[in-house]
């Protein structure tokens, strides 16, 4: 019996009428179950009876006009069963009878679970749409057993048919979707979805240059497919529907019907963004409860995905050459996918078989608080170990053997610390891939030709840093594409290759990570920047500033690079956002530029925020840690260098610049500290106009410290970024340089004079 393309009425009538729901009666299901059990696997290839029964089952939709009892659960069970049977039909299961029995069990379960609307648990009381959507893939995924049939009806073989567009029509009706999913499951799904989307994005970009890359197509397909499967299980209908439509598009690429380039690639990327948007929203819904706002273009996107050609989307220059065997190929593809769906959860833990990267590494997901706990414990172990090693009883020649053993233990402890620290490290690869995507999008939007070359993607950084770094990098890449790289004709006139190059590099350098962004564009225009700064009153007219200081002006808030560097208007991406982002990471950013040749932004970052290089200083009886990276220099001032502005603000002249003096002991009310700058030390922190000289009693030396939160609600203390356990086991506060410079500017010399510590006795 040949399979006809499924009429649209099965899943819903496009337009105003609500889709109807299939009603699985117990009798039908029981019959199906028994049929499945009796079915001879060898005859499965000619499963006409079975097919008829599916048809009947789904056909009941029409006989149930009021759409009352249609538990989604049942629809799902039947879908699942259908997948298994499909695998048998295509000869893809090792043990067909086992698979059939499993399918039978599923159907039987569906039959048992047959319930009246009143006793269906609420989360399965579906709004009419979800069920319709669940039924649509079920209908679509039923393959006709004979390839000829499928060839006769290509619409049925490749998934986009009337169904998705019907679904799209109904999606337009509602823009808010209520989420009711178990938190744990939802979080797991979101984690997995994020991974899949990232991989899919990477593969789509690969496909643009290498459209024939099978691995890449498979990766994208699998990503959409897995998301579809799991989101269906969680009742996340909008996600399911979008993933399904995207999968349909990819299945055509997979069947070599289309090449995933040009318009198709854009479409796939749009779908990917849509999914990401939905996932991000889901992440924000609390405890799995909440609503999902469906973007306005959701329905249109679904429609495009279903029939790209009808929306004027094509592969661009790429030729469309449907292979003669297209229909035949599509069947195993669908079945493989069904297969992959079951295998995927395992793969999430060990993505060794994921496309592209053939790595044998096996991964385990670990909660970050456990990692942090481990790091805490190891840090404490290091201190405890060094206490033992320095114990007086060990001194003297009699204890040499014991000393040797303790030294050995110390070595292991330090190794352990390195290892524990490295657990938090992740390569920059994912971030760089994201940048490739952004460069591509901006280039398209601004009609520029450019290439993003990345290098050093394997450079590892602390996970927290990597996440935060992405945002400033996005701004910088956008700026480089938009303002840095010239349009092709301008480049040609300037004698440069039409295609601009942006290079994104990462390297380890002396305990830090350097991230550099080179572009071979027009470079920064020093004169314009300076003129603008004078106009804004940021610098005085006759001030002589170095090139680097001039370039650094673009980091000032409200200093629109657009007006200065190019004449493009309407862009307000402030570079101040970039600098603030980098500063938050204890990093530094510097600019080199040559007009007409290009610009280089270099960012220097600590490898991790968990461990920081600090300068230990003493103020009174307290010790503080200042991140070494923030310190410009330390000096003891001469008498003549000190001055007062208007009798209040203390200033010090240093290298021809006058800096405000910030008295930490006053701001933090530390008793018995050095008052006279001539007897203490001044530490210059901050850059450019924000620099200040902080007065401390003395330097105690440099030390690597493990950065910890102060615990409880002791956050947001101005000037303090955290605490660290010092070598003697006591806690020292880590100063926040940007907070200190802020305090210095708001009250120079820390002269508020308030006593913040009213507690008379402080156990010390």
């Amino acid at each position, binding site marked *: 019996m040949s399979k006809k393309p499924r009429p649209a009425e099965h899943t819903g009538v496009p337009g105003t009428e609500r889709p109807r729901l299939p009603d699985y009666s117990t009798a039908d299901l029981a019959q199906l179950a028994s049929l499945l059990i009796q079915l001879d696997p060898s005859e499965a290839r000619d499963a006409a009876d079975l097919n008829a029964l599916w048809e009947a089952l789904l056909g009941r939709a029409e006989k149930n006009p009021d759409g009352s009892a249609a538990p989604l659960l049942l629809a799902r069970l039947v879908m699942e069963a259908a997948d298994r049977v499909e695998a048998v039909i295509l000869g893809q299961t090792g043990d067909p009878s086992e698979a059939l029995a499993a399918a039978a069990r599923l159907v039987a379960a569906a039959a048992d679970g047959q319930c009246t609307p009143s006793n269906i648990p609420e989360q399965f009381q579906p709004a009419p749409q979800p069920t319709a959507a669940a039924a649509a893939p079920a209908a679509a995924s039923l393959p006709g057993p004979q390839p000829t049939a499928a060839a006769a009806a290509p619409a049925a073989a490749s998934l986009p048919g009337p169904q998705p567009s019907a679904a799209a029509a109904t999606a337009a009706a509602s823009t808010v979707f209520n989420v009711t999913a178990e938190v744990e499951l939802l979080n797991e799904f979101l984690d997995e979805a994020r991974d899949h989307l990232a991989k899919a994005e990477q593969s789509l970009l690969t496909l643009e240059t290498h459209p024939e890359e099978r691995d890449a197509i498979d990766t994208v397909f699998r990503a959409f497919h897995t998301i579809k499967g799991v989101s269906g299980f969680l009742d996340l209908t909008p996600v399911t529907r979008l993933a399904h439509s995207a999968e349909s598009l990819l299945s055509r690429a997979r069947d070599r019907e289309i090449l995933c380039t040009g318009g198709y690639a854009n479409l796939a990327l749009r779908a990917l963004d849509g999914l990401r948007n939905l996932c991000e929203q889901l992440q924000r819904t609390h405890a799995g409860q909440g609503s999902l706002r469906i973007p306005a273009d959701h329905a249109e996107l679904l429609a495009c995905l279903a029939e790209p050609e009808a929306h004027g989307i094509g592969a661009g220059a790429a030729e469309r050459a449907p292979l003669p065997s297209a229909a035949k190929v599509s069947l195993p593809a669908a079945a493989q996918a069904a297969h992959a769906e079951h295998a995927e959860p395992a793969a999430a833990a060990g993505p060794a078989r994921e496309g592209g990267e053939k790595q044998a590494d096996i991964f385990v997901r670990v909660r970050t*608080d456990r990692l*942090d706990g481990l790091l*805490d*414990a190891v*840090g*404490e172990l290091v*201190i405890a170990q060094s206490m033992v090693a320095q114990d007086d009883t060990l001194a003297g020649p009699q204890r040499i053997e014991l000393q040797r053993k303790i030294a050995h233990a110390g070595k292991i402890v330090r190794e352990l610390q390195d290892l524990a620290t490295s657990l938090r490290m992740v390569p920059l690869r994912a971030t760089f891939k994201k940048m490739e995507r952004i460069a591509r999008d901006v280039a398209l939007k601004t009609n520029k030709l450019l290439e993003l070359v990345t290098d050093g993607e394997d450079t590892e950084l602390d996970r*927290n840093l990597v996440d*935060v770094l992405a945002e400033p990098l996005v701004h910088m890449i956008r700026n480089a594409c938009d303002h840095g790289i010239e349009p092709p004709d301008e480049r040609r006139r300037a004698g440069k290759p039409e295609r601009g190059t942006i290079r994104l590099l990462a390297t380890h350098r002396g305990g830090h990570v350097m991230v550099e962004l080179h572009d071979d564009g027009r470079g920064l225009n020093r004169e314009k920047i300076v003129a603008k700064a004078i106009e804004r009153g940021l610098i005085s007219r006759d001030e002589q500033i170095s090139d680097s200081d001039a370039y650094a002006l673009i980091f000032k808030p409200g200093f629109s690079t657009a007006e200065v560097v190019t004449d493009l208007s309407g862009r307000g991406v402030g570079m101040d956002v970039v600098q603030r982002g980098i500063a938050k990471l204890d990093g530094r950013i510097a600019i080199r530029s040559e007009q007409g040749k290009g610009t280089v932004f270099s960012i220097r970052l600590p490898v991790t*925020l*968990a461990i920081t290089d600090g300068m230990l200083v003493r103020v009174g009886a*307290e010790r503080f840690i200042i991140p070494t990276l923030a310190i410009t220099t330390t000096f003891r001032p001469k008498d003549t260098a000190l001055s007062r502005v208007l009798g209040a603000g203390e200033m010090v002249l240093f290298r021809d610049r006058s800096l405000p003096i910030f008295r930490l002991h006053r*701001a*933090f*009310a*530390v008793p018995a500290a050095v008052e006279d700058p001539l007897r203490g030390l001044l530490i210059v922190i901050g850059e450019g106009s924000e620099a200040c000289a902080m007065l401390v009693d003395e330097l105690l030396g440099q030390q690597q410290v493990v*950065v*910890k*939160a*102060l*615990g*409880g*609600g*002791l*956050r947001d*203390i*101005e*000037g*303090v*970024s*955290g*605490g660290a*356990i010092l070598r003697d*086991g*006591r*806690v*020292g*506060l880590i100063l926040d340089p940007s907070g200190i410079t802020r305090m210095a500017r708001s009250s120079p010399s820390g002269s508020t004079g308030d006593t*913040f*510590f*009213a*507690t*008379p*006795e*402080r*156990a*010390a």
Partner: protein
Amino acid sequence: MSTREPNSPATPDARSGKYLTFHLGAEEYGIEILKVQEIIGLLPITMVPNTPHFIRGIINLRGKIIPVVDLRAKLGMETLAASNETCIVVVRRHTMEMGVVVDRVKEVLDIKSTEIEHAPEFGAHVDTSCLLGIGKHNGQVKLLLDIDRVLDSTGLMQAPTAGPETA
């Protein structure tokens, strides 16, 4: 049988159980033993600037930094120089730990519900809302502290969202 005190989270029956008692000045106080994680001697405390006066600072509890509250200061008593007996009771709330400085820890008592009375009202100038009730044991009065309420009012206990690393 005492009536349920309106602003006490616990019923009289729930209030009965084991209490860790300690001295604060002349009075003896009790904290439900289940809230107590451990008792440690007075460690060097690092001050934290710009915090309320009853926050002594932070200590290193086996590699973890936890804040320490001076219970005397918190309850409006005058503060006292540390003695040999001064110690820190580490209490746990949600996933957060916090140290509470007390003058001297005494014992663990099993206080029955019949021995607990609700705290009397003294008018506006004495706030008894931080008391679960008043326990009487062997003729002695123990003030049973609602330690959760005390600590919540420090502003240090927030919903357990603390992301430890990026302070």
